[in-house]
């Protein structure tokens, strides 16, 4: 009869596993990183910066945030709750109004020749603006464009924007481009 090999004691296995568990509990975090994704413009040397980019007044949606976190939209005080609606109206310009941005026809896949807005949102903040307010304003502007895209996606393809194919998304992105320009911060009165 072969000699029986004694079993390895497994009583301490639980302790070892507990130790590992506690190590991972302490050194890891649960939170998923998420945030507002933006792209910064290319760096341009201030001396080479030409100031002659003439954009028509009606094509610019000016949002100013001053040091007291007040909003000035198109020259008048505004509330952040209305900002999204106004930005949407500006970018879409559904009734081709005179004071809202011009549109120019462009060939776009899936849509054919479509009128694309020339509107630009210009966001400018003071050096003393609070970061929280700045993010709130950015969020509203991004939300406005996202909502427009989503509405168009549902109308044309019957699906939310997120579920579309890549080239369908690109087509919609061409119609509603995310044009939020951030000038260098200045004193905002």
């Amino acid at each position: 009869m072969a000699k029986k090999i004694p079993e390895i004691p497994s009583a301490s296995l639980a302790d070892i596993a507990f130790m590992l568990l506690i190590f991972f509990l302490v050194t890891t975090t649960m939170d998923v990183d998420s945030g507002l994704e933006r792209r910064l413009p290319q760096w341009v040397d201030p001396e080479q910066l030409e100031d002659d980019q003439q954009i028509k007044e009606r094509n610019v949606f000016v949002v100013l945030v001053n040091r007291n976190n007040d909003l000035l939209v198109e020259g008048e005080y505004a509330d952040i709750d209305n900002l999204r609606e106004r930005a949407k109206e500006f970018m879409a310009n559904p009734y081709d109004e005179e004071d809202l941005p011009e549109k120019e026809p462009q060939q776009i896949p899936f849509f054919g020749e479509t009128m694309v807005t020339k509107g630009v949102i210009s966001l400018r903040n003071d050096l003393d603006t609070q970061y929280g307010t700045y993010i709130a304003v950015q969020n509203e502007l991004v939300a406005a464009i996202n909502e427009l895209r989503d509405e168009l996606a549902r109308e044309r393809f019957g699906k939310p924007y997120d579920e579309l194919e890549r080239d369908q998304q690109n087509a919609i992105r061409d119609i509603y481009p995310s044009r939020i320009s951030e000038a260098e911060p200045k004193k905002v009165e």
Partner: protein
Amino acid sequence: MSKFRKSGGKELPPISTASLPDIVFMLLFFFMVSTTMREVTYKVDITLPQATELSKLEKKSLVSYIYVGEPKPQFQNKFGVAPRIQLNDQFATVGDIQDYVIAEREARDEAERPQMITSLKVDENTKMGIVSDIKQELRKSAALHINYSSRQRIER
């Protein structure tokens, strides 16, 4: 001749602990899968701002972080209470950002460099002055893809 057994002899058998390691291992694997390693020890206090249009940072390995906020109480006698920048594990100035971005870029595979994202974790009470400076530095070092880290806000 024990016709009568001693009273109290019927004790409950002890609960078997043979499955305890299995249970603990299950917990362990759950935590290993669902959590991520802490990147750094925070030296600044950060309360992230709230937003609704969030996108997740998909590839953790391609993200470099910049933290801005008030120094934690134990550093305040040395660094004051004005918001400071933290890169990796130490306090830094705006001038260090370009070097940091270059170092981060060098550490990545060449094919992955275009997809790199810089995540800005900034306290919501910080003034925009310091954030604008950081953005200018990032533009100078061509790290244009950024992510303003924020919490999910529940819409009313």
